[in-house]
């Protein structure tokens, strides 16, 4: 079976589209992590 590698590609996906996709899923994830870090703080401050 012939191998179809990315080196054959004529029109690669733009880096901007990849970055945008990661940003769209990254923003809510970052929001969740930020909030959980706030919640974790009392464990270290003894609050």
């Amino acid at each position: 079976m012939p191998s179809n590698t990315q080196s054959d590609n004529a029109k690669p996906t733009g880096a901007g589209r990849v970055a945008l996709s990661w940003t769209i899923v990254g923003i809510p994830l970052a929001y969740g992590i930020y909030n959980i870090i706030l919640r974790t703080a009392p464990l270290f401050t003894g609050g």
Partner: protein
Amino acid sequence: MALSFLDREHTVAPPGYSRWLIPPAALAVHLCIGQAYATSVYKNSLVEHFDTSNTAIGIIFSIAIVMLGVSAAVLGTWVERVGPRMAMFASACFWASGFLVGALGIATEQLWLVYLGYGFIGGIGLGIGYISPVSTLIKWFPDRPGLATGMAIMGFGGGALVASPLSGQLLSRYDGGFDPTEPGSIAAGSAVVLLFVTLGIGYFLFMLLGVFTVKVPAEGWTPEGFDPSTVQRKTLVTTANVSASNAIKTPQFWLLWTVLLCNVTAGIGILEQASPMIQDFFRDAEGNSAVAAAAAGGFVGLLSIANMAGRFIWSSTSDYTGRKPIYMLYLGVGMAMYFCLASFGTSSTLLFVLLAVVILTFYGGGFATVPAYLRDLFGTFQVGAIHGRLLTAWSLAGIAGPLIINGFLDASGGEPGTLTAGDYRPALFTMVGVLAVGFVANLLIRPVASRFHEPESDEPARESVGVARED
């Protein structure tokens, strides 16, 4: 047909399509369905709204998790056949419909409708959504399957981190008297109705990002510079394919099922009791705990991060170590961690926290690494469907883990708020035994016998062969 763009044949990636678009597509689904682990935000509101017990409301979540396992097992082959785009779309429809029917149930004060909506319909969305991107990710990342599935399944852990504060903020917006930072504050039922409608619509739209982005690689595609022979040389890794119906006839499937069952049972044991457990471990003779309630809440948050991080870190590491050795780590070192927690956990809060964090990274790692382990053993042909069948171990562990912990705590005769570390020790030593069973099961895993392999052909059969072929 209007929805033909969802078909597998319409989702084949054109030359040049970046495989790095596939993990965010998978994350778009997993971040949404991970909400299933953030139901505690509105649980008390539903108890008051329906004027019923915690158990009656807890059943909503239980139905959803049972349906996750059942639908993943039953619909896994369908997911493989129709492809990831159709599966993700179906998952989005079920998941969103579940919220909307659930909202109708809350608005009309009919609890059975919430069981049907969020529990049954939403649970089907959970199962389809959980397995929908797995097979596709493995095909796009034949060189790094652990990394790929780790990223997606990390999203399921992350989904709860997103949904919990988001739900709290939305509820306070819909009910001015509700304060999510106040433990005793309870939102009105009407606010939960609006929350469910908002989440249903919001999750549907967000999951569409995954639907429109995901693509399957063209037949024969390999990443640039990838040499399949480097993967084939690793122990246990096969280039053959095993159908889902044949996989469940192999001892390897059931050994791995046992491994997942044991790893998840042990992890859930800690997760379920995390907040009271840390307070009980540091309770003095007068019954006062050295760990405040707020700090115990922080401990739960830290475990959530450990659970999520373990999914990505350990699953990615397994691409270098191999799957069997990494499970020896999860289960073997996990046994040592549980033993230390039971024996020396009271000596310092820092030690207790560190041990629990490591255990929870292994718990998350066990979830995220298992699709790559299945791919090594059974090939890529129906790995998503096989994964779906394996997830029944998760459903059982969800019952077994809490049962073990709560069973021993109830047997100790202590009341909540008066328990001490000694009351937990029998349960923790039992978890050492549970992990030992998993450790042995992992050791026994060998390559799958060739009689279970699909016949060699240019295009593997779409349907499973049903009867194992004797070579």
